[in-house]
């Protein structure tokens, strides 16, 4: 086995890097692959919370790098999926505790044991960002259909190109079909036109993501969730399969909005 290292990055904070990392890891593990996620956001860890593994952390990435434990010892196995592991970030240190070559070393050691290594990048373009893209084979840039997020994504794509790690692939998160239809939000087409890189996924805006994140249960675990399906499709595309993009049309959206209205009225 030779693992593929996938790094999820964005530039701007709060666009959904960690959520995407967690859900892609879950989706790939559900497809039967052995997956390790690494939280690259040292000092501000939260991938453990999103995956619901917070209370099981003993060792972290910095412990591995500083030889206080073996990689195996820091890998927390998910209870829901057999082959999903997390290497958490340290909470009490900062980004300078790890260097790009440390990350390459850790990933190289894991490469023969797993199928996919998914790395969650911190916001920004400094040390933490460089740490996480150094070992990457595939780089996924997450953005929202907002001008500020797209601007930062553009910068990140440029930096990835400059590091000769490109071309990056694009995930557009939190697309609201109602707003785009009315022309109040950039459409996925607008975003792709500006950024001019391959689109690998479009994720609808979904309040269930917030709920599932708070519960530590990624939406990809829910077989009925459309958003979960969108993440599963990205996982399939990473494996090299061709999957048509979900129709985020108004119909389903209208129904769910109506359902929402009835719910409010009933309360």
């Amino acid at each position, binding site marked *: 086995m030779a693992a593929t290292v996938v790094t999820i990055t964005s530039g701007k904070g709060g666009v959904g890097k960690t959520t995407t990392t967690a859900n892609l890891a879950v989706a790939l593990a559900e497809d039967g692959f052995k997956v390790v996620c690494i939280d690259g956001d040292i000092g501000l860890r939260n991938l453990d919370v999103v995956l619901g593994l917070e209370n099981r952390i003993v060792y972290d990435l910095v412990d591995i790098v500083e030889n206080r434990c073996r990689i195996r010892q820091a890998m927390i196995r998910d209870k829901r999926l057999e082959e999903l592991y997390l290497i958490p970030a340290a909470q009490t240190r900062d980004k300078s505790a790890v260097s790009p*070559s440390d990350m390459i070393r850790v990933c190289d050691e894991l490469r023969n044991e797993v199928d996919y290594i998914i790395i969650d990048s911190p916001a920004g373009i400094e040390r933490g960002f460089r740490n996480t893209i*150094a070992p990457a084979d595939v780089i996924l840039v997450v953005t929202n259909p907002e001008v500020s997020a797209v*601007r930062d994504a553009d*910068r990140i794509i*440029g*930096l990835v190109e400059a590091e000769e790690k490109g071309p990056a692939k694009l995930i557009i998160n939190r697309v609201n079909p109602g707003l785009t239809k009315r022309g109040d939000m950039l459409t996925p087409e607008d975003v792709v036109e500006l950024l*001019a890189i391959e689109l690998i996924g479009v994720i609808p805006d979904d309040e269930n993501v917030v709920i599932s994140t708070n519960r530590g249960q990624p939406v990809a675990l829910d077989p009925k969730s459309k958003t979960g399906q969108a993440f599963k499709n990205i996982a399939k595309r990473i494996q090299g399969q061709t999957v048509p993009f979900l129709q985020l049309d108004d119909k389903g959206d209208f129904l769910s909005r109506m359902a929402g209205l009835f719910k409010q009225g009933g309360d």
Partner: protein
Amino acid sequence: MENSSLVQIKGIREGLLISAENGTWDDRKAELLIMVKEKESFFKGARVCLDVYETPLRVKQITQLRDQLLDLDVTLWAILSTAETTLNNARALGLETSLPVKKDSKEGKENKDSNDRVENAAEKAVLVNKTLRAGYKVESLDHVIIFGDVNPGAEIVSAGNIIVWGKLKGSAIAGAEGNKKAVICAMELRPTQLRIGDRVFPPQQKKGKTFPEVAYIENDDCKIELWNKEKGR
């Protein structure tokens, strides 16, 4: 500081300036790394600027050195060079390519060089063969030609003309040294900001399809008009 054959170090206001003019790149790099390792406590946490003179460096060579220095807790923040390739690659990686204050005699000479070049500005042009993404800046005393788009957040500064064979959505400053005869043209002109000399163009509101346009200054007025070859522009 101790001088060795290939690598010299001196302290400057911004940190350390390392000059490495001679020898193969691998030799210079090896010597620099050995020097840093030997004086670990001196270099720990240092910010260094590297002057490679005319050596053209590829991206991989720069990133390798930067990461190896980082492992030793040394930050490479700037690269000085007279080679355009090196400067472009360093800029693309977000490194500085000049020192903020130019005081010593060597820098003075450079300034004189650049003045000489302004007079010849009509002859030369820099061709950038890709799309400029946000955060990328092209600065030149020559004309600038972009074969691609200029995205919002990208910037072009030229002492001469600017030609964009694509969409200009970022900022463009032509005639930056005061030449009001400079022009800016693009296949699609939707800039964040447009300047010629010291004149800032008023913001444009454009909707729908756009055509190739040219921006220029006439009688101290900012003008933008459709490309028209009969005018000879």
